[in-house]
């Protein structure tokens, strides 16, 4: 039975371009207080355009209705559980949005004098110190713009370290359960990828790892807890094996929400890692970004951090550009500072104990879902669950229903689906991460929905195969979209 939702009227909305009328606009500019300049004579007639062909022309009220109507066609955390595994869709506190808009911070220009930037530099410096404490690492760079960008930065640093020792080496070892960004990053840093198979328990197989490590291996890229939500119990041993061969250990910190306050990567042999402020530290996903991907390193990698480096000298914050061994800049200016402000606000609200409690609750919620759903869906890996659990559609495929169909049916029950078909090592994966911000009541509704869908699959699989039924947009033809791509609006001739 569907308890969480019922249908309501939802407005149709054309594209802006279809709604435009000549001469409309929603802007007001003050009168020009200096003499006007003729564009063609100042810039050259050949350099000047006559108009922006096709650009929208709508009034202010049409504009706000347009975006408001469209917004109601989105699911969001503000509407309920968003159990995307590996994405950590937790509540985004609104105070974070407010403080990020404080004038002195929001309007700070990256080239304004340091003497007029001490407040924002203090925010960054404080966040660096706290992230180092949380990860157990020695230094942080806030420059990378997102997780994958952080991976790239970290691997560049490993390469620079090994080069300084005489040999950058050729390969990165990446477990088969890794995020796709890991192998893509390896390529961008000039490394070949060698996949490492997981064992029956869903963990890195220590024996195959030991066999794979040789003098050509630069590093292991490991996610811990891994994408099955399983803590790599042999992590200390794994790090020892890598270090014994002169290789480094990179940790993808996407799943750090399972560890904050409980265990620190710096204490289990990790040399360099990234964090996703938009996952663990609650900065909003915003429909796909912005993110922020700080990178944490141990002492031996500090010389290679991107430049400039934020430093404190003579009681003031300052940028140091004199970093001869630095891998260089990975981004203009200093990073996604607006996200740093939000993350620090999140940390301040929680405090040390609150952060640890969030971890405990995230793990509790994932284990609760696992326990209640296990009788109805196949759980291929039995190892203890941390912050997320991965089921498979094995039982349901016998009735011709796959993970993607179950996901679509969940929409009818008022939920955003889990992560579909990832990690790749689980056939028909259903990857569920509830996060700590969900109440028992919301989790129970979700569990009831999944149980109810399991029953529907037994009695009426067609119902699930054709889902969603209650959304304003029914199942979307993604195949045609890719075969005949239409990626911009054009006027009908």
């Amino acid at each position, binding site marked *: 039975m569907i308890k969480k939702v019922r249908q309501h009227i939802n407005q149709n909305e054309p594209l802006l371009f279809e709604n435009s009328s000549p001469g409309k606009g929603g802007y007001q500019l003050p009168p*020009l207080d200096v003499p006007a300049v003729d564009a063609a004579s100042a810039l050259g007639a050949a350099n000047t355009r006559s108009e922006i062909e096709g650009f929208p022309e709508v009034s202010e009220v049409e504009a*706000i209705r347009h975006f408001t109507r469209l917004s109601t066609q989105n699911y969001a*955390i503000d509407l309920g559980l968003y159990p995307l595994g590996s994405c950590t869709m937790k509540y985004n506190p609104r105070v974070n949005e407010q403080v990020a808009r404080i004038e002195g*911070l*929001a309007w700070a220009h990256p080239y304004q004098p340091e003497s007029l930037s001490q407040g924002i530099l203090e925010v960054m410096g404080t966040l660096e110190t706290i992230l180092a404490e949380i990860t157990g690492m020695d230094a942080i760079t806030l420059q990378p713009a997102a997780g994958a960008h952080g*991976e790239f930065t970290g691997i560049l640093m490993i390469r620079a370290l090994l080069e300084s020792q005489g040999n950058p080496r050729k390969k990165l070892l990446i477990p088969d359960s890794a995020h796709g960004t890991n192998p893509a990053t390896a390529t961008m840093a000039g490394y070949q990828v060698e996949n490492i198979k997981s064992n029956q328990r869903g963990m890195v197989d220590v024996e195959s790892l030991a066999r794979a490590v040789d003098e050509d291996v630069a590093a292991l890229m490991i996610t811990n807890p891994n994408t099955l939500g399983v803590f790599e119990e042999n992590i200390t041993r794994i790090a020892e094996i890598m270090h014994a061969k002169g290789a480094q250990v990179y940790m993808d910190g996407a799943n750090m929400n399972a560890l904050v306050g409980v265990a620190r990567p710096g204490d289990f042999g990790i040399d360099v890692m990234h964090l996703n402020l938009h996952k663990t530290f609650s900065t909003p996903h915003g429909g796909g970004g912005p993110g922020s991907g700080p990178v944490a390193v141990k002492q031996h990698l500090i010389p290679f951090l991107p430049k400039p480096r934020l430093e404190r000298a003579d009681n003031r914050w300052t940028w140091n550009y004199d970093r001869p061994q630095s891998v260089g800049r990975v981004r*203009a200016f200093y990073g996604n500072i607006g996200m740093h402000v939000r993350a620090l606000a999140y940390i301040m609200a929680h405090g*040390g104990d609150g952060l640890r409690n969030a971890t405990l609750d995230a793990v509790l919620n994932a284990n609760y879902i696992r326990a209640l759903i296990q009788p109805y869906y196949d759980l291929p890996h039995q190892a203890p669950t941390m912050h997320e659990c991965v089921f498979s559609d094995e039982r349901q495929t016998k009735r011709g229903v796959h993970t993607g169909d179950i996901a679509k049916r969940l929409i009818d029950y008022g939920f955003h689906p889990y992560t579909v078909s990832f990690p790749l090592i689980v056939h028909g994966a259903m990857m569920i991460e509830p996060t700590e911000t969900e109440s028992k009541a919301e989790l129970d509704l979700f569990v009831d929905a999944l149980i109810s869908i399991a029953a529907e699959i037994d009695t009426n699989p067609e119902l699930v195969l054709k889902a969603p039924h209650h959304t304003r947009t029914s199942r979307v033809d993604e195949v045609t979209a890719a075969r005949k791509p239409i*990626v*911009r609006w054009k006027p009908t001739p």
Partner: protein
Amino acid sequence: MLSAIGASTLEDLFSHLPAEVRLNRPLAIAAGKSEYEIVDYFRARGELCANGFASFLGAGVYHHYRPVLVDTVVSRGEFLTSYTPYQAEIAQGTLTTIFEFQTMICQLTGMEVANASMYDGSTAVPEAAMMAMRVTGRDRILVSRTVHPEYREVLLTYAQHQGMPVAEFGYVSESGTLDTADLESKINKETAAVIIQSPNFFGIVENVKQAAEIAHKHGALLIFVFAEAVSLGLLEPPRDADIVAGELQSFAISPVYGGPFAGIIATKEKYMRQIPGRLVGETKDTRGNRAFCLTLATREQHIRREKATSNICTNQALIALMATVFMTVYGKEGLRELAQQNLAKAHYLSGKLQMRFSGPFFNEFVVSTGNRTADQINQTLLKRQIIGGLSLDRYYPELKNTMLLCATEMSRREKLDAVAGVFAQ
């Protein structure tokens, strides 16, 4: 909940962690604070910054007015707290706005395809260069010294281990425009792309057509970079370029000390399958209604892994939405009028100062500071609550005693006069 799991305490859920990895002390982080204390803390940090100062800094980050509608829209939880729109049936809001964004970027740049955004302009440049390598099968990149110096630094960082040698070509000292003779002498059959920026870092409008002709004559692509998007309200779009890589900060994105911003890559339809990042396409649902979805994902890392066009995953969707609302509010006439105001303000101020270059410029320009350094002038301006321009010798040692100044629609005439007054002293 614990009994459903079969555990007796929360700690039991972590009992499988090896003892040596456990943190056996509380985190050394202060106790949690109330909302009021948090707001108060950040307000105080804001006051330690440049509140109340007028600014004439540009150089890739511009002070433009942000229409109220922008934050009204992006503060809606349905946009703010949603994820990447993989489940199209419940993400039509985000998908439709991205489709509109892609369309408007095409209209603005004269290109045929635009992606759903990159991290920023600086990272869009190396991504465009990597794209040119894939398209041409060549590996050398030639970049103009008039491209933003920090964009060039990021290009070098990305290029270093991808077998993509990067060389620079110079500018004409008199005009401040790119040196076509130097470009001609360096381009060859191995050049994958020529990268230019317009308005360039000195604010000067480049001859895109001429640069494109040189690039194309040698079988290379032309990558056109823009950092000041408002200029496209007046300037001819770079139709002769093959790839456009740009920064949208000027479109209602707060400076926030350098980010988050939103970059874009746009190109010709024939190169669509080589474009990095997310793309939204139009299709239909099973009821025959128009619908949008992410498309051509086979270019991307989650499918192609080490063979992907880029490792980019997260982009700047919410920031791109700010730009979308901005473009909607200003629209066809507004963006043009806004650009006109920028042009007029900059030319009013420049008319009172000694210009270093002769090339045509939009809202930024380089002036000589005479027998004073730029820093000396800036110190005097600071006493009048004015942040002056950027001293250029940090990036261009040959440009001693010069300053890059920017005026926008937010620069009031009395402030423009105040700057001119300090120069005249």
